[in-house]
């Protein structure tokens, strides 16, 4: 089966129903997306499929054929961080860091659709991404900061 991951075409030999998360992590060595729950309950495994934030732990790889897949591993371009990553660094958001790949990918998708989200918009999208270290107050600030950075870059 052919997958398009981070702009590259990759060949994998797995059954259609294997979750995308494990195909990325184990077959392709792309370990940015993390395993937290395996049941679409925490968001640690979030990647973009066709521009949409998806929980890769429950998404059968067969459903992603011919669709561009984007992971945090390729979010920074040529050593330059994405505005969301930059805002995350500025705000010293991560603690253990385990949830952050998912938080960042969810935020990138959110800002692509809604460049100026309100606190309620942020809640309605990011409340599905768990952070056991409790970085929520900083995530909220960083989302607003990233929105401002993207706005300024236009």
């Amino acid at each position, binding site marked *: 089966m052919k997958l398009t991951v981070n702009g590259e075409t990759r060949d994998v030999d797995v059954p259609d129903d*294997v*979750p995308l998360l*494990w195909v990325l*992590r*184990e*077959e392709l*060595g792309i*370990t*940015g*997306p*993390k*395993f*937290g*729950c*395996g*049941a679409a*309950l*925490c968001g*640690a495994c979030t990647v973009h499929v066709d521009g949409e934030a998806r929980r890769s732990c429950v998404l059968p790889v067969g459903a992603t054929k011919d669709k561009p897949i984007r*992971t*945090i*591993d390729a*979010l*920074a371009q040529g050593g330059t*961080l994405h505005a969301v*990553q930059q805002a*995350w*660094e500025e705000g*010293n*958001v*991560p*603690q*253990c*860091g*385990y*949830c*952050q*790949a998912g938080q*960042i990918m969810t935020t990138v998708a959110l800002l692509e659709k809604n460049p100026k989200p309100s606190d309620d918009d*942020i*809640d*309605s999208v*990011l*409340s*599905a*991404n*768990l*952070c*056991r*270290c*409790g*970085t*929520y*107050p*900083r*995530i*909220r600030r960083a989302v607003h900061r990233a929105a401002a950075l993207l706005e300024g870059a236009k």
Partner: protein
Amino acid sequence: MNRRFFLKVSLGGAGALLIGCGANPPPWGGAHMPQSDDGLFDANAWIRIHPDERIEVAMTKAEMGQGSHTLAAILVAEELEVPVDRITPVAAVGPQYELNGLMQITGGSTSTPELWKPMRHAGAAARIMLVQAAAKTWGVPAGECSAADGAVTHAKSNRSLTYGKLTAAAAKITPPQNVPLKARKDFKVIGTNVDRIDLREKVTGAPIFGIDVQVPDMVNAALVPPPVYGSTPTAVDDAEIRKMPGVIDVLSFDFGVAVIASRYWQARRAADALKITWSKSHLDDFDSAKMLADMLAAVGEEGPEAQSKGDIEEAFETSGAQVLEASYSGPYLAHATLEPQTATAWVRGDEVDIWTGTQAQTSARNTAARIAGVDPANVTLHNTYLGGGFGRRGCIDAVIQAVMIATRVDTPVKLTWSRENDTRGWYYRPQMVARMKGSVKDGAVTGFYAHCASQTPGSVPDLISQVAPGWLSEVMLRIMGRLGAQLFDSGTVPNMLALEGMTSHAYTFENQRIDFSPVKGAVPTLFWRSVGHSFNPFAKEGFMDELAHAAGVDAYAFRRKHLAKDDRRLGVLDAVAKLSKWDQKPAEGIGRGIGAHFSFGSFVGMVSEARVVDGDIKVERVYATVDCGQPINRDQIIAQVESAIVFALGAALYGRIDVADGKVVQGNFHDFRILRMNECPEIVCEIIDSTESPTGMGEPGVPLVAPTVANAVFELTGKRLRDMPLVDALATAMKEG
């Protein structure tokens, strides 16, 4: 792969460079390694400087989010005179890093106090040697040279050399005997806001966690643990499973059945399809609700006395005293680190390698050595970043399992727990009850009594294996474990961990007695962020509020009466009252709770503001004031307060682990609920300036969250919530009307 995982522990080792440190000689023997061909400068066991200006610092404390690596980097950088972000952390494990003289462990909010002096001494010693090396090179007195920004300068002759250029010369300098530390007024970094040094890896999804480890030829393991603790597999029907793609082996152990496959997803699928027959367990009929009822009955009587002062009976009987009584409870709780437990092990001949993120470095290493039958010196523990700890990774069950599996597999093997394995993986915060009784007269407390019952937080046999030396045999360990358990369970030894936060609370009462009934024979328990302080203050501060209410005194004023004038507790309490504008009426629909507590050497004052909306508790704002001595990195103190509040609030409102028929009911995040973004309050934190020695902040933010929220709900609804989780207690209270 992060190179960190492959670095052998080479900072340190043989040799003898003992850095004299003035009045406080360090407990470790640093090592002056012979200068290698590439001109390294191994200043001591902690710091290595490369000719290309890289500075590596040995990280002896696990990084689990609490910022220990950044902290250590700051302390070294301050004295070494380099920017903090020039420092590369290198996880270091070994006997030479047992800072408390007993073992290498990360927990108990000890990283700050334990690193405070040694890391600065290490940095200062290296700087002195670099300055002397430069002076010697130039033929000038060392006193005329100064170090700043990673270079030594001789101002008179306008010459300067970077540290990287001085490594070869510095390696020949005799280590200093006397290493003075900077005076507080000279601090440039300590006490400011410093960026974490692990940000880049953590915003780019780098492979830094135990679960990300990849070792050549590695296979994967998935675990089916027994449904009831203590039961073991008696028969495994694996004929079909062995034919599944990728499956290599199906192995039975006392701890469950492990499926070994090329990939984790293959192992997991096969494991889920296994048919296993399990033996009976002594916990087959265990029911946590029944246990709670038994505990409540037990504390109804007087119990074995753990602490006593004055005469509470007399206080209760004094005429005019108002006497109150109420019982509080808290459930079992899982830690629910977002990264499930994982460990990779490779056992070959007399050598063992382990890749994992653990809080219990010494214990992991020694236990692996015992299992594999090798010398602990032949065990290399590659300690990765931890995807959350909170005490759970102080328990090394997954490491033990991985090593046991690895003894039966020819290649390295990575064990990854599923979320369900993790939620049902025992080692919980113990279920607790406390019957409180107190008296007030003339607006103040005259007698204070608590009868607490719980298991000790931490299974005693496990605790003993943590501290036992590596050479102790398995049999000896088991005997010691049993003896230790008897000692604790007998109730003759006051159970310090179970009672902390109750015996050692913030307030001074003339008459106080604490009884304790230890609970035996239940599921394994463990340290859970702030340990006994995570549940006892719920009863203590909740009951203080009841007493204040009965006395008709404002909750803040009432608490002030029981704190001495020079007490730092009074400082944080007054500060939080001011910060939260306690003297002004709260907004419509807002209830407030206040408290002060002392734990792990740090003082915290807290005010929570909450609403009740459609039977749900919505905490809008939490104010926290903290006095943790000399602040080192202000931003990360605040980060830890935020973290502790969010962690504790999820537990207070929603968290519970129930056990029915020996089986854990909850399994994943849908039924083991933790706090979400939309439930997160605004957090306002103020650090009290202090010149006392610094103390840790990983845990002290936890204790006051549950009681201040419960007290806020009382103010709003008149309902006393005395059982966690609070949303369940509120629902029950509403039904009862």
